[in-house]
């Protein structure tokens, strides 16, 4: 009995895989739509988080100021925040009756971008702070004794930290791309508007559209693996 069930499941999966490849190769509009939106939303979120997170990380990693340890601990604690939890908090803030309800942002890509940006911000801040802290003192002293100005020395510190920082950016993008909670709570999985890879996978699987889910999962995994490999190559290149 069990053997039969197993072999039926294996057949289902194989069939799903075959149809999934077909869907991808045929350029199915719903597959393409979800993929492009995922890349757009998570890309924009990572970009926003980088603009904010890299300078914050550099400052935490290189300057002494009151509350520095506390701030650091705060961002470290946020590293593992559950996506659904963050999604819920933002949902309450952005919903009609919430404090920012007037912005009418809920169930728009902008809300998803905002949510994912907040989700990956701690990754960027903590990783950048660590990377900068590791090279800060030695590189700064070295640059200065070789005649660099304050600004030139700071730029050199950032350049030395760059391999680790670029890894942080890619890790952040991957986390945004692969998360479900924020996208579902703030986007609402509206077809043609806020539907992304993860939300479609979750919904289509419950509806029984296994092959579509598998097709989208293959795409999601491919992007994540490709980026991780690219990150490693990039890091090796940057490190000479």
């Amino acid at each position: 009995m069990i053997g039969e069930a197993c072999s039926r499941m294996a057949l289902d999966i194989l069939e799903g895989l075959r149809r999934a490849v077909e869907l991808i190769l045929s350029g199915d509009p719903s597959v393409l739509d979800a993929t492009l939106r995922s890349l757009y939303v998570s890309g924009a979120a990572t970009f926003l988080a980088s603009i904010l997170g890299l300078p914050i990380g550099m400052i935490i990693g290189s300057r002494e100021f009151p509350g520095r340890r506390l701030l650091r601990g705060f961002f470290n604690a946020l590293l593992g925040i559950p996506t659904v939890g963050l999604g819920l908090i933002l949902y309450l803030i952005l919903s009609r009756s919430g404090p920012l309800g007037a912005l009418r942002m809920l169930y728009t890509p902008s809300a998803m971008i905002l949510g994912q940006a907040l989700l990956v911000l701690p990754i960027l801040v903590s990783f950048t702070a660590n990377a900068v802290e590791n090279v800060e003192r030695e590189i700064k002293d070295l640059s200065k004794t070789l005649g660099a100005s304050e600004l030139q020395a700071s730029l050199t510190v950032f350049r030395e930290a760059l391999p680790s920082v670029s890894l942080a950016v890619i890790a952040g993008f991957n986390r945004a791309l692969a998360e479900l909670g924020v996208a579902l709570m703030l986007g609402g999985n509206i077809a043609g508007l806020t539907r992304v890879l993860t939300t479609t996978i979750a919904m289509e699987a419950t509806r029984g559209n296994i092959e579509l889910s598998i097709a989208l999962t293959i795409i999601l995994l491919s992007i994540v693996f490709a980026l991780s490999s690219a990150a490693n190559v990039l890091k090796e290149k940057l490190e000479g």
Partner: protein
Amino acid sequence: MPPLMSLRDLVKDYGEVRALDHVSLEVEDGETLAVFGPNGAGKTTLLRIMAGIEAPTSGRIYYRGVEVDGKGLAELRRRCTMVFQRTVIFNTTVYKNVAYGLAVRGLPQNEVAKKVKDALNLVKLKGYERRPARRLSGGEQQRVALARAIVLEPELLLLDEPTANLDPETASIIEETIRYMNRERGTTVVVATHNVFGMGKVAERAILLMNGRIVEEGSVSDVLLRVSLRDAGFSMLDNIFVGWAEPTPNGTSAIDIGGGVKIEALGKRRGRVTALIPPIDIIVSKKPLDSSARNVLKGRIVEVSEAGSTVRLKVEAGRVFTAQITETSLKEMKLNVGSEVYLTFKASSIRLL
């Protein structure tokens, strides 16, 4: 002519700890000054202040007779360059490492290329331009660091333990380069070291720093002699012994260094001498060696400490000797504190002052 640099009454506190305690010092244009002292004596702090990358808690610094204030620090840093004890290498090619200081000064590319090439030739790293600097060996990295400093042709070159934990070959390349910069290019050199055997030879004048204070000042041999007479000197600088020399019939001197130990050194000497034995010249073995070396002592290991890829052994053999061996030898011979060993060294390894 005012001295190149004068330090007046420098004090540096790190919280409760006083790293420099009223240090006054003059560095003359063109000289080579050795700063001796045990670890933690304040040598690095002194050099960092002279390099303008650390501010003293109090005291004044004059450069060519002009007081260096907050604004003058950047200018001071363009004229003085420090090479740190712990080699720091930018994560890029050898060329870009060495070119860094010239690039931030905005020198034209072709001039930079020429100077970098010259500097790399001096430290015997010709053709290394495109190599990733962090992939080089420790000794090669230290030479890159030196090339990166001398390429700037600084007026004052500050070196913090430039040959500590290096293989003898690299150490001698570095010593030669420093000597060349001083003699041929007129670079003033201040070198902090606890190794009197290498840099002690390069320098003319020395100071001894202890607990943040200059306690001896004078010619290198004078300072070393006085160091060896201090009680603290014995534990601080390795293998410095004061003893009574008697000439032997075979062209050497037998020196009684106390503790029932007699050593034999080259040269006919009589009377009080100071003998230095480089730790690296002492061979350590578990059984007596069948060799031509004149000095064989039996002792017991009392301390084992790591020093980079090498290990320093303190051996009690009537007097305490320090020997430097590789980690591999230590493991192969299964040596440990308490092990009985033989120390063997040639008469020609001993330097007499």
